[in-house]
């Protein structure tokens, strides 16, 4: 799994790390059940604080993509739907980025999605 961070980016480092893992899950480079590299090692490799890496991992856990267990480290959830979920989360992020680029407020984005949902089943 490739993790890359750009320290001068506006996106927080932890989020950048989470985005890399999400991307690897979405494109199938990283598979369900696989172990993520230990946060301590990632921190040493990237030259960032270990808590920054853990923040990224916690974000992924909150999104239901990985499990964090004491002693076992971070493991990708061994669930068939994990890859699809990672794709969906990536798509949601690009939707948000697009909307922000247009200057839309959060409420506008939500109502946009609600309208799309109300339009009925997608093709």
């Amino acid at each position, binding site marked *: 799994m490739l993790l890359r961070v*750009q320290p001068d980016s506006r996106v927080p480092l932890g989020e950048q790390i989470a985005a890399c893992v999400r991307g690897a899950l979405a494109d199938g480079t990283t598979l369900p059940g696989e*172990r993520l*590299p230990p946060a301590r090692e990632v921190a040493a490799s990237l030259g960032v604080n270990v808590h920054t890496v853990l923040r990224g991992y916690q974000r992924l856990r909150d999104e239901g993509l990985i499990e964090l267990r004491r002693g076992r480290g971070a493991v990708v959830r061994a669930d068939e739907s994990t890859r699809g979920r990672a794709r969906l989360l990536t798509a949601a992020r690009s939707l948000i980025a697009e909307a922000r680029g247009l200057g839309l407020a959060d409420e506008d984005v939500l109502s946009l999605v609600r309208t799309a949902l109300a339009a009925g089943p997608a093709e």
Partner: protein
Amino acid sequence: MSVHIRRLAVVAAPFGLALLSYGLWCARLHDRLPDPVATHFATGGGADGYLGRQAALWGGAAFLCGAGVLFCALAVRYPQRWSIALGGGLAALLGYLFSLTLSANADVTDASEAALYLWQLAMVLPIALLVGLICWLLAGPDEAPQAEREAAPALRLGPGESAVWSQAIASPVLWVVAGLLAALGLVLVAVPSARPVGVLMLLTAVLNGLFASLRVTVDGRGLMIASPLLPRPRLRVPMRRIEGAASREVRPLAEFGGYGYRVRPGKSGVVVRSGEALSARLRGGKEFVVTVDDAGTAAALLNGLLQRADGVRKEHS
């Protein structure tokens, strides 16, 4: 005729000849042999092990056949020069030993009178070595390992960007070895006289198990291979020793003669399975490989890191 078919013939022929001459010897001596026949001899030359005549004759033939099939299979799968030579030498050794055993039994009324002295074995080793050498010469030199690599493109990295690539590798071979050693060790530990051997086997099993799974990391410092369970030992190839990287296919037995941490002329590496491997070209022309999935990405990152370092160096000079 391709090299592979020639090598198969070179290793099959001595086994065929050994079997043929052993068969002829059996037919010629059959009626002059006692039943049972002596099949094992003490260092003094006296017989101290016996087997029924038919069992002994067919057993010898079966043993030769089995060894022949094994070495032919080896020649098909891994046509290495040393295995061809070893097979030929072994065929000569077995054929000669079995025939000698029969001769020792010829014309005795009881198997206990049969005798085989150490000096009679003097010719066994030279003959085996000679046949092995002939096979070695007939097999011809091994093909130079195919050096073609997939040229890995370099990953473009921003000036301040840091990146790490990390991948776990598991070795089915080492897991199986560890499992077998552990099982055997447990059995031996239960036997009082074999306890030290059993303990040693269990320790070896633990060692094998520790290295059956590893983690490979590529970052700005270079390439690192370590056990996920222990901080040491670990293997580091610092960035300044690396010239470039690529992904290629590795055949452990043919190229490295086995599994684990291997050192061969011109190359070394951690080889725990066959297939995709990250190959780093080191300063001085040597190669370092590690079998790992997604090696193309790792190679691209290494090349990207090298390229960026090069760019920075040029700017400063």
